[in-house]
């Protein structure tokens, strides 16, 4: 299910625009999160998710323009809870994650950060663009995953926890022999 927040309304007042410090806080959080995953500090990264967090990457399909969405209603590449993310992390930290042995080198570029709305409980709907570069071994080529990312962040002290992450990758037929990295 596509998150209810689908787009910034160009005619509406951008709730983030009046509060640059809020956007800056959100950016700081997302940059830290990207840093942890690129540095392969997966246990620390996992702590940034709320206990009931969800992590979803829908399947991209190619449909005619009139069909509206180019995302599968039910299909997912990732359909994780914090519990299953923890299994993935546990595996990566074991000696037997062959697809990451030797590890991929990833770099997450997070940009176009927009605070779409603020809930009464302080939860933020955040939309951003993400480009993930991935290279492995001595391969002279790389994989690139470009995605539309929607996060629901809940405040915790002077930072946040990710309550919901949803990312739609822009490619329907992916490269990379396996997707063994987090997007």
């Amino acid at each position: 299910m596509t998150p209810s927040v689908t787009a910034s309304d160009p005619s509406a007042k951008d709730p983030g625009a009046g509060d640059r410090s809020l956007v800056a806080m959100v950016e700081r959080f997302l940059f830290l999160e990207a840093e942890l995953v690129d540095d392969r500090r997966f246990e620390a990264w996992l702590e940034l998710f709320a206990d009931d967090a969800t992590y979803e990457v829908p399947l991209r399909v190619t449909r005619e323009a009139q069909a509206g969405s180019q995302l599968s209603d039910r299909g997912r590449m990732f359909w994780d809870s914090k519990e299953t993310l923890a299994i993935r992390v546990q595996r990566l930290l074991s000696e037997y994650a062959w697809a990451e042995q030797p590890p991929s080198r990833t770099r997450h570029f997070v940009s176009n950060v927009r605070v779409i709305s603020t809930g009464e409980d302080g939860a933020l709907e955040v939309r951003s663009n993400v480009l993930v570069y991935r290279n492995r071994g001595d391969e002279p080529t790389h994989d690139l995953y470009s995605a539309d990312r929607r996060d629901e962040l809940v405040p915790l002290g002077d930072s946040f926890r990710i309550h919901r992450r949803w990312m739609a990758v822009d490619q329907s037929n992916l490269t990379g022999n396996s997707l063994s990295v987090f997007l």
Partner: protein
Amino acid sequence: MTRTSERSEERERLLDRVRSDLPAGRLPAEIFNSPVVFDLEQERVFSRVWLFLAHESELPDPGDYVLRSLAGNSVIVARSESGDIGCFLNMCRHRGNQVCKASEGNASHFRCSYHGWTYTNTGQLIGVPQIRTVYDKTFDRDDWGLLPVRTETYAGLVFGCIDPDAPSLDEYLGGFQFYLDLYLRPGPNGTEAYAPPDRWVADVDWKICAENFAGDGYHTPVAHQFGFQLGYYASSASTHAAGYAVHIPGKGHGIGLGRTPGMPPFFGYPDDVVALMEQQLTEEQLSIFRETRTAVGTVFPNLSLLIQPFSTVPGEPGLRFCTMRLWQPIGVGRMQMLSWCLVPTDASDEYKREAYRAYTLAFGHAGMFEQDDFDNWSRVTRMAGSPLSRDVSFPYLMGLGHEPLPDFPGPGVAVQPYVTETNFRNLWQTWFDLLEQP
């Protein structure tokens, strides 16, 4: 020497190597990354056999279509207004433009965006712009429909074949249906694809995957060691070899049926699905499936299915998911992967959802088991392309000379244990019989 004769000499050298290796339980490594083998396979294997196209549930309503590839051809698989499923080359008969550009959708007609020829979803040409002014009266639209492709169906699976003289799908499957029913007939309404397929391109030779899924229980405790180590997988390295390997001689199809001694019957299935299976399947089928932990099989040449329990809590039974995958060669040492999750149509929505989630975690492009496999397979492919691999053969010696089980309840040739290479020798012999046939 001309290029043509060089090419045919290279073909003969390679075929001779396979011909002398096979009876000794060997196979040349170079077949897993070879331009000569790629061309031979396109010409002599994929143009002659039944190839998987789509699951009927992907086309639930009249007008639904999916775009697929059949032996290197882009084809439309569509359900017509009368409910029949047909398949056509995705090429306008006028100048060859693609008439369909989406991977899925619903349409009563396909209109070419070049000169406007328009076809029904049964492939019939019904619209030709300015037909009265630009063509004379002898022009007959019936002569210029989309090129049809022969299709047949088994238990919801639609197959296509470009050889008009090939035997029927039923004959082609040759008794393998007995085992396919475990995946495809878990209830009176069979299965449905939970979602469209995951699609990705990999630097892997398709044959490595087809062989692995024809029952390679040997790799599991090593390649997927994390699952054993962390307790997410209901088997242990010491008991993993138990079970059967079954193949259909001369047809290439093979299945591995792994058992875990002491495992409760139908471990990991919900009770309502078990009740339906017991009504639906024969006693011979049930006697095998009741005790099966892992069922991993390949329909020759490149369609595979797997049922396996997977747990998100170490040590718990977890639940069964079923994946179906198509390994399509698209170049030398390169393939297009399509991977579906099938769920029993009659199961609860909750079970379907949880089975799909288990699939995404274990298989699918980001699945943890999938990741291990594709990493290994890409390295096998790379090495098979080394110049020195021309001097290397792989052993296919496990179970060579073992007698088949005399009283196995299912068709084909069954051997014990599950970990063996009997199925693979049959797969390679079938492949080679086609390859050497001009």
